């Protein structure tokens, strides 16, 4: 679980509006903190599907699953089982 979280964090540091040295708590909102916008979100979904070889069902594409590091990590953990 930790390696998934770190992988997403590294992705966000490289591909989002997050500053390199910024600290992101597990429950911090990615959209409300301006880390990803709507296009960034689509790119993140593509990255998750490709990196973890998973398909995300439409009903799981919710703000709750994608708006925080914890939400994303939990989603990947559930789908990658």
């Amino acid at each position: 679980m930790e390696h998934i979280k770190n992988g997403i964090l590294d992705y966000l540091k490289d591909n989002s509006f997050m500053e390199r040295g910024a600290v992101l708590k597990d429950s911090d909102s990615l959209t409300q903190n301006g880390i990803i916008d709507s296009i960034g979100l689509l790119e993140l979904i593509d990255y998750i599907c490709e990196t973890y070889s998973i398909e995300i069902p439409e009903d799981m594409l919710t703000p709750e699953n994608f708006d925080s590091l914890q939400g994303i990590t939990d989603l990947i953990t559930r789908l990658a089982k």
Partner: protein
Amino acid sequence: MQIIGSSVAQTTESNIGKLSKNSTEGSINYINAQIMDEMNRDTDKLAEKLKGFIRDQVTAFKKKGVVLGVSGGIDSAVALTLCVQEFGKENVYGILLPEKESAPSSRTLGAEICESLGVSYEEVPISPIIEALGIYDKKEQIIKRTCPEYDPEVHKTSLVLPDFLNQGLLNVPYIRLIKDGETVARYRLKANDYLELIGLQNVKQRSRMIVQYMYAEKMNYVVCGTTNKTELVLGQFVKYGDGGVDLEPLADCYKTQIYALAKHLMVNEAIIKRPPSADTWSHYTTDEEFYWRMPMHIMDQLLYAKEHKLSLEITEKNTGLPGDTIEKAWRHIDRVRDTTEYVRATPPVYYLGK
């Protein structure tokens, strides 16, 4: 557009002091605000003011009349009628700009309103421009790699977003395949494909802009825009496409107000009844399916409530939506507005010495 921020759930009492702002024609009772009534009132005076604005702008630009792209939709019908009432049919020129994927009704309704107003008009199909740039082919390639079973001989296509109010899903775009009027499949678009597709699709509106200016400059006319406030706030127009115009008389009127104006101006009922659409997909895709993700009257009430800082309680009463859904929708609107800021922006200038 003003942002409510984190204090959306203001109490009625807190609004008493804050919301003393007047509407165009009189003070609004914010405590018992009936949003739809507010948007629909004094339409006759609004029409007169818009006509005055159009005249002032055309005069300020020292132009002789108005060119308008007529789409068969309600916005261009209202703008065209206002222009004709102000300048006379002799000084207004309508251009119908269909392309291969336009609905046939766009052309017939566009021609009908020009003829009913006695306006000179011309049809200038933009398909040759689109074809010359390979837009249709590139679009088809994206659809094929997104939807494996896509057959252009069999399927019509549209680009849609999930309904917001009932599903609460993310703003993730899907290509929908339609066969014999029925949706047979939908596939999520990848980010790169979505961006490319938007760039390709927007060539349609930008081609229309080029043609309109070709005529306007020849005639020494202005190009009149048809963007309304709902579209403006949500960035629901193409920069240097339908947003590339000389004046925007309707851009402070919510779509609901455009309907009220259309009724007041006695626009053809078929145009009023036609669901709003950018009409750039082979399957007629409504603005509700792609942009608003909810019925127009709900979106307009949410936008109006935000603009006038109405309380959550009043917005609940008006929309019939639960408070948490309204707060989610307001956050969604904030995100859309922020994301589309660059669409509304004019090119920033670096001023020397400042």
